[in-house]
């Protein structure tokens, strides 16, 4: 009995203590409030938010496109070579077309493009939920379509068949699409962009920094040039390539495109915005933002000039270029493409004396810079042109030639580029298609475009066989250039991505 009473008393005490404690502390708030510190995806509902997302899309592309690795396929061209050793092996693998999925430098193009695509997908998915100025929304959504197309085109030009993801927030295991599917998708996106983008993109320092309607048309012409060539070889697409290029040329004033008078100035920091030749251009902000172009400057110089020996000119190409320039009277362009004078860096070697260097190769002025402002930098504000207006002209000339439609306008398009290069006599007869194809070779030397021309015309083998006997033999690594192989035309998808999605191996 007594025990019962004690228990009663103690239970009463416990009860009141526990109760008071509970009342004192209550419960924690266990619902997270992410909106407090992070942006919810549903906040993507205004034109301002869309603007920020589209801005981020550029940054994600730039994060990788600022590196030479983004243009890894371009090292396969006969215009560009690299150094055999150190961390340049990945470039060499592409240069000699001996890449494997494990090769270095394979991820930049893959990562940069898909990161931009992921954001473009989010923007396009959100387009119906966005409130604000209709013209602004159209422009930004048009830009997202353009970027998605640009990225898929860069991907397929680099890796061939790649998976297509158009949905946001999806984690499905995609297979590699067919070339047909890829091209159709790029065409569809570029047409959407063509429809939505304005003639003139507002608020940019020079045309091409952001795309306009003309940029979309110009990229359609590039797409059709590829479509007509290897691997699908749908020759009918030359007509579309010519037509789209012609639309740009006929309305060049509307879109603000023109050839620059100062070819060399295109690759200077001072002249980066003082021309209208960029159809789509990546700008740098090295000095004010700390983020710039890392494909130019010092890395195009030899060790003798304190350089990184990353991107050089190939010898045979250089010699052919020099000979052609003398014949055509285009020495001005030749001199704007290569550095032959004294280089004011390192031990001040003379460009023309490249044969005496430890890694004997000509120096590309387009890489080192049109003036010396970036000569000792690895992060600068030289523009990277994804496409110049000159390509539109040459697409038109070549496509017309391939169609057998050698109009005066088509010849004029070719001659405009030649005249700017210094030629004083116009070409009016001959094989227009081949003349334009060769013109591209010189015009875009060192801009990572030559390789894609060689692929679409299936001329890789002959171009690579045209090697100078002076060209480096890679004793160091015991490797020689390939003449065929699984990855001869298209680079392999990087192993690290196959690891994550094994279905990409097929």
């Amino acid at each position, binding site marked *: 009995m007594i025990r019962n009473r004690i228990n009663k008393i103690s239970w009463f005490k416990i009860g009141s203590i526990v109760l008071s404690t509970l009342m004192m502390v209550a419960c924690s708030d266990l619902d997270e409030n992410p909106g407090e510190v992070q942006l919810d995806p549903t*906040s993507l509902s205004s034109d301002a938010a869309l603007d920020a997302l589209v801005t981020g899309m550029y940054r994600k592309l730039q994060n990788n496109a600022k590196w030479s690795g983004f243009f890894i396929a371009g090292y396969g061209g006969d215009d560009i070579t690299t150094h055999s050793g150190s961390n340049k092996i990945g470039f060499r693998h592409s240069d000699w077309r001996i890449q494997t999925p494990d090769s270095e430098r394979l991820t930049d193009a893959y990562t940069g493009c898909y990161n931009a695509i992921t954001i473009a997908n989010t923007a396009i998915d959100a387009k119906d939920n966005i409130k604000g100025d209709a013209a602004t929304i159209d422009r930004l959504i048009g830009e997202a379509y353009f970027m998605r197309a640009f990225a898929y085109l860069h991907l397929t030009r680099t890796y061939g068949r790649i998976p297509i993801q158009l949905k946001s927030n999806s984690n499905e295991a995609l297979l590699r699409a067919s070339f047909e599917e890829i091209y159709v998708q790029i065409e569809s996106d570029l047409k959407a962009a063509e429809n939505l983008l304005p003639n003139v993109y507002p608020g940019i320092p020079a045309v091409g920094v952001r795309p306009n309607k003309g940029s979309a048309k110009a990229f359609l012409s590039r797409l059709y040039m590829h479509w007509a060539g290897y691997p699908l070889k749908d020759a009918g697409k030359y007509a579309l390539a010519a037509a789209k290029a012609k639309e740009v040329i006929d309305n060049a004033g509307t879109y603000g495109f023109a050839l620059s008078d100062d070819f060399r100035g295109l690759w200077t920091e001072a002249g980066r915005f003082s021309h209208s030749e960029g159809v789509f251009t990546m700008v740098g902000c090295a000095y004010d933002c700390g983020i710039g172009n890392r494909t130019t400057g010092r890395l195009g110089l030899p060790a003798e000039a304190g350089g990184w020996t990353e991107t050089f000119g190939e010898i045979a190409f250089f010699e052919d270029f020099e000979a052609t320039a003398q014949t055509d009277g285009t020495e001005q362009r030749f001199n704007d493409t290569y550095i032959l004078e004294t280089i004011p860096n390192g031990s001040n070697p003379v460009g023309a004396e490249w044969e005496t260097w430890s890694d004997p190769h000509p120096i590309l002025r387009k890489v080192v810079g049109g003036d010396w402002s970036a000569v000792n930098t690895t992060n600068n504000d030289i523009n990277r042109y994804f496409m110049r207006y000159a390509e539109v002209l040459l697409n038109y000339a070549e496509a017309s030639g391939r169609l057998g439609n050698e109009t005066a306008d088509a010849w004029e398009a070719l001659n405009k580029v030649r005249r700017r290069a210094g030629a004083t006599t116009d070409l009016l007869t001959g094989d227009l298609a081949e003349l334009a194809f060769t013109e591209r070779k010189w015009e875009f030397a060192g801009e990572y475009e030559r390789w894609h021309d060689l692929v679409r015309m299936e001329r890789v083998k002959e171009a690579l066989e045209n090697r100078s006997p002076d060209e480096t033999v890679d004793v160091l690594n015991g490797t020689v250039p390939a003449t065929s192989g699984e990855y001869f035309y298209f680079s392999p998808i990087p192993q690290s991505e196959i690891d994550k999605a094994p279905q990409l191996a097929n």
Partner: protein
Amino acid sequence: MKKNNSHTRQIVYMCMMFFTSVCMYGQTTITGTVTSIEDGQPIPGANVLIKGTTKGASTDFDGKYTIEASANDILVFSYIGYETVEKTVGSNSVLDIVLKSSAEQLDDIVVIGYGTAKKSDLTGSVSTVSAKDFEKQPITRAEDALQSRTAGVNVSKNSGAPGGNIKIRVRGSNSITGSNDPLVVIDGIIGGDLSSLNASDIQSIDVLKDASATAIYGSRGANGVVMVTTKKGKSGEPQINLNYFISSAKIPKKIDLLSPSEFASLAGTTVSGGGADYQDEYFQTALTNNLQLSASGNEGRLNYYLSGNLVDQEGIVMNTNYKRYSLRSNLNADLNDKLSVGLNIYGSKENALNLIRGGSGASSDTRGGVVNVLSFNPALSVRDSNGDYNLQSSYGSILVNPIAVQNERDGNLVEDRLNANLNLSYDISESLNFTILAGASSTHFNEEIFEGIPAGSSVLEGRASFNAIRTNNYQLSNILTWNKDFGNTNLKLTGIYELQSATTKIANIGSQNYAISGLSDAFYLLELGQTQTIGANQVKSAIDSYVARAEVNVANNLLVTGTIRIDESSRFREGNRTGYFPSVSAAYNLGQFISEDSFINNIKVRAGYGETGNQNIPPFSTYQSLATGNNYFFSGSSFNIGLANGALVDEDLTWETTKQFNAGLDFRLANGRVNLSVDWFKKNTTDLLLDLPVPQFNGGGVIRTNVGEVQNTGVDVSLSAVVFDTDNFKWDANLTMSAVSNKVLNLGGLDQILTRPNGINPGGTGNNLYIVEEGQPLGNFYGFSYLGADANGVAQYADSQGVIGNGIPDFTWGLNNTLTYKNFDLNMLFRGVHGYDVLNATRGMISLASGDVTVPTSADMLKSDSPTSGTNHINSTRYIEDGSFIRLSNLSLGYTLPEVKGFKSLKIYVSAQNVFTITDYTGYDPEVSSTGTSSSDATPSLDFGALPNPRTFTLGVNLGF
């Protein structure tokens, strides 16, 4: 007092004389004083019990007791920390008892979470280290106390950087990409930090290993629980101790490199400025000063322990340093018979200079640091003839001169902590106790970093950053304990309601492209940078918990414990938020079946099962976001704000659950001189919080989801013995051994995950270095089989990649010996780690050109079988090495001076750590890794410029006043 005693004695004698004849067999009043043999001081609160009855008394503040007993009765005198003494009353009426303190007895109390238990009553698996186990080794960190002294607990010092992170694993690795760090509980407060703790304040560390022990911590218990108990004042006269030691540390060895002239001839260059030995330039002999002052005692109802500690430790890398200042006040007061209150306050300030990524790297650029030191052109002097740095070279490493980077770096990590916890205990009745434990801790962490010459492949201008992180943690535990005897059965019930919350606020600013050049320490002049980055964030989490435990003890033979914890965590969404973590365990003493004169005194059989969880993911893990910080510059001169997609999320994310079965045997042999414990465990972790890599076409990065299962099985053995025990010579030995085998049972449909440690990319290929595969253990290296060099010196490899090694040790052991001869004591701690490989990427980077190294620097280049060309796959069998090692971790010799005037005690000692290491590993140290400590279990044992643990010599003195 003395007078009182004699007075009492007189009366007692008179009474004795009077009653002897008449009350021979009646009850007598027995009195006496219980004192301690060490200091002769009375022991208050000691128990006096008539054997075989529940009748007893306890001593008062003067150590005196009174009890009614008959001549045949046996009185049992006991007190925590002292050996129990039994005396037959006989004709005595005064029994003065001197108790001998017993380390063994003291250890018998084990902290089990929300309470304590006698070691003999344990049903689960708990390893204990107490101060006496590590006080012979001069240590500055609590982790050092644990290393090799606890079976089943693997402590690896991944870095030789002072203040660097230390990896602790309890019984293997559960989580593939999540954290495998054990939970740290300091004086009952969950989520403590061992690195900032003053090791001298530690009374004991109890590691809860099996699920029946850890389930009481539910969702945070899966990786084991490290329970730290700090010191309290002991009874008796106030004690003042001053301990000081000074250490000198050096790298244990140097890597054999080409001489300047050998390198120059290999590279086809010339020696400039005499070249340099970059290892000598980079590493230094580092001094440590450790000063510890403490005062403790017990005055009436108040018990106190006060301490202050200063550690000033130079790093073995030039221009690195670690300082820690700490103060502790542990106060306990018995306000009355029922109510006691304790307040522990600990404040510390840590200041680390140029500690990078918790010590796992030595440079802000992962390619830099030690790798760059070893690969930088040895034919080029550090400075040119004008005294300016030779910043870059085309030969060797093309990265910026590591000496310049390290010299011009001023990276300060300042961490201030203040922990306070209040313990209120009220005995509601004899059997019922209510305790409130309230803890608050705040941490202020500042990173103030200036890099005068930033690491990297380009010579860049100086840059600075300033990051401020402030964390507040609160815990409130309400603990109700009911403890009752029913005949020979004891039942103890515990109920707990606990709330915990944590908030972290972060601000960071970075600045570069300074308008004015020549600034140093420009983290206070960030506003002068023309390129600035800013950010702010807040991270919050909370857990509410309900816990119940029942402990039954039947006649000290059968012991059963059951627990359940219910946790509700804010990290998961409603519906997935509540976790139930049950456990049950039992033990049975076979001692009753063993004859008393047997060599075996007792065998205890234990078995238990429990489920625990892991919720260690960042807050907001289930919410998608738009990522900031993706600004772009259409103008070419200023930023526009840009956003990007956040990572994909799994909204249904929930606990990772570990189910563990444990069975153990405890042997007590040779009258307690030898104790052996053997535990076998099997634990399966399911619903892993796994970061699955997302293909780039779906956005890349990872998605954190619950898939897969990992199994760990193993055996822990702990053997302690008093090898010799004579008057002058005593030898205590303690051997711990652990074997763990780990296997991935399921990856949620994936065959394999290939991975590499975040941000670490030796050779620049971006290739994966590790593979997680079904049916295989974690930590498998993935790469190429090296086939040697061909006739032209070209490195050859097998075509396909596969598993080339495993980085997780199979077997670890520690042997701690303490020998005492008269006033000398000698401590030797040996440890062994066996059955694992290390990917020596450091050697890889200097053995063939690759990545940022144009010409290799290793002396191996002179060997005829070394390849001179070809691809240098870092992840190849060429660089996989057996990491197994045996090390004399500590060797200390101490001498306690007899009777020095003015001192209660005076001891001097010399000591050495990392005295020698027996290993086939060719790098600096097989124990270190560059991959961090918290979640590196899929990517362990990668030496990519990891900082070695130094060899240390110490001279110390301990003074007692």
